[in-house]
């Protein structure tokens, strides 16, 4: 049950739309690099997981979504958060535990959320966000608002039982749910295929859910693959499952520097052959949709924007101590 369409929807995308995707991917990458700097300089508390290399999935999927659509994300979730519409300052603020963060500093990198843009939250429980987005899809169905619920999760979450339960529920209730697996081939330090049996898309097909493997390093491929799924979901056609083939360029977390569980060659190959930003950049240039210098200018703008946001967040105050026992219960 592959999800294909006759002529790829991305062919109809205006240059501006493609450029926007590029800009988003560049922003995510610059954001992540800046987060890495914070961490290296010990200016950021806790741990963090960067999504460099995986930008195309977040951007390609979220391009179909609006504010009434909900996503849930993971511990590697900065890209999803930004692609869904969040702003850089409160993102940095949250990661630094500042009062101006989306969650007032209470959530941090692993729990960042932005209700306004329909982001229900990153999650530090592997698989934890899957039923939440599926529940958002249930709301959309009951409230008949044509919304969809998208859960992003890693290949590691494929082995959490909650996936089976959520997929089955989405299937029997025909929910507008999209299960978006980012297969970056490792869960922490363990290769995915060592702990994950069978063909991955079968885990969706087992429930009669249309399922497809997609090149997650190609933002237009991601865009094309999910277009029909989102439309079908909105029209009451039920859930879809995607396994996006992708790669995290850096370590699992910041402390994972040597990455003994994989080879330098492997890393080099992904970076040099399949980089999603390079790819879209070359497409745009090849199609004559913009010039090198225009793209370089975008890159500079993005970096400046990120740097400025980082500065603002860094200057922001920590939360007031009185915040500590607020928000345990809602009134």
């Amino acid at each position, binding site marked *: 049950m592959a999800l294909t369409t006759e002529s790829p929807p991305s062919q109809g995308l205006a240059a501006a739309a493609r450029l926007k995707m590029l800009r988003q991917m560049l922003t995510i990458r610059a954001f992540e690099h800046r987060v890495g700097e914070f961490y290296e300089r010990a200016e950021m508390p806790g741990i963090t997981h960067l999504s460099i290399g995986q930008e195309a999935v977040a951007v390609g999927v979220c391009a179909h979504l609006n504010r009434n659509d909900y996503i849930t994300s993971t511990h590697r979730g900065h890209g999803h958060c930004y692609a869904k519409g969040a702003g850089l300052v409160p993102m940095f603020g949250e990661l630094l535990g500042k009062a101006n963060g989306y969650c007032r500093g209470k959530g941090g990198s692993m*729990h960042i959320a932005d209700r306004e843009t329909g982001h229900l939250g990153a999650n530090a429980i592997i698989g934890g966000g899957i*039923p939440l987005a599926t529940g958002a899809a249930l709301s959309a169905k009951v409230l008949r608002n044509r919304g969809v*619920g998208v859960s992003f999760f890693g290949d590691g979450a494929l082995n959490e039982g909650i996936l089976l*339960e*959520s997929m089955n529920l989405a299937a029997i209730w025909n929910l507008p749910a999209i299960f978006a697996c980012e297969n970056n081939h490792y869960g922490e330090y363990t290769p995915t295929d060592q702990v994950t049996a069978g063909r991955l898309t079968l885990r969706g097909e087992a429930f009669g859910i249309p399922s497809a493997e997609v090149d997650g390093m190609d933002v237009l491929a991601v865009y094309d693959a999910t277009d029909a799924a989102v439309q079908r979901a909105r029209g009451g056609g039920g859930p879809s499952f995607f396994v996006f083939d992708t790669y995290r360029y850096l370590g699992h977390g910041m402390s994972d520097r040597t990455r003994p569980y994989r080879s330098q060659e492997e890393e080099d190959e992904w970076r040099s052959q399949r980089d999603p930003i390079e790819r879209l950049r070359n497409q745009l240039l090849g199609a004559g949709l913009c010039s090198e210098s225009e793209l370089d200018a975008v890159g500079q703008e993005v970096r400046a924007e990120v740097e400025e946001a980082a500065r603002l967040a860094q200057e922001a105050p920590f939360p007031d101590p009185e915040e500590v026992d607020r928000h345990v219960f809602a009134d």
Partner: protein
Amino acid sequence: MSSPTEARQLTFSQAVNEAIREEMDRDHRVILFGEDVAAAGGVWKVTEGLLDRFGAERVLDTPISEAGIAGLGVGAAMTGLRPIVEIMFGDFLPLASDQIVNQAAKTYYMSGGMTSVPMVFLTSMGAGRRLAAQHSQSLQAWFAHIPGLKVALPSSPHDAKGLMKTAIRDENPVIFLQDKVDIYQKGPVPDPSHEYTIPFGRADVKREGEDLTLIATSSMVRQALDAASELAEEGIESEVIDPRTLAPLDEESLLDSVRKTARCLVIDEGYQRYGAGAEIAALVGENLFYDLEAPVRRLGAMDVPVPFSPTLEDLTIPRKEQIVEIARQMLED
């Protein structure tokens, strides 16, 4: 208005059913799902008739997927619905406990107050039905321990109805525990034309007395009242007070009662060790050290998995005779 105190006799199960029905009438965002809750009306008949009244989009039978249905409930609650999710037996809460504890309980806080999770986990508790170790537990202490959760465990049909209505209207996740040994017991419930809710964190004095306070929860209230009657024959006047919710806990009312009586026994059906009674006993001990005339005592279930054989099971559940005996000892102190 018709006569205000016209009280019908309803079972716990009927009372909760009525509460859900009224709240679903009142608020279209309230939906209900769980295993066998729709067509079959629930294994305790708590959801009988609701499918007919509210239709298949608001009352849904689910697969046997406790974690999944809990999680979908949380997600739905985050996005505009107010789900009631039935987890048939409280013993199955562990299957859903990641979603309850790590997601439902923490979302409002972790999001800095952006997203609340207004939902009810409707479940059952208690031994006495010869259902053995995996269908008889009373795990209220677990959930009362977790910041962000509220825990209600009514001891009468009247309270059950009023607390359930409050639970559904609450903006937070509520664990609602029905004591299954009593679920078909009847008690007076006001006519539906007299709507009432019972606020959380408000204990109820079930019997007044001067000599001794019996703090009891769920079906232990009945055991305590029976014990109080027996003790009264010996001239010992017990006050029986039911916190009704463990979280929030009406500390003031409990302490007021013990301040008056100077003696306190806490009875809760969870395993005694590290049980809910420990919190209350510690609280009373800490606050009323100088008022107490005897040590605060506790009575919980025996610290064993609930055995199947009736002759053994009965030994594990706190019962009137034990309350009477401990009370007598306490009055001698």
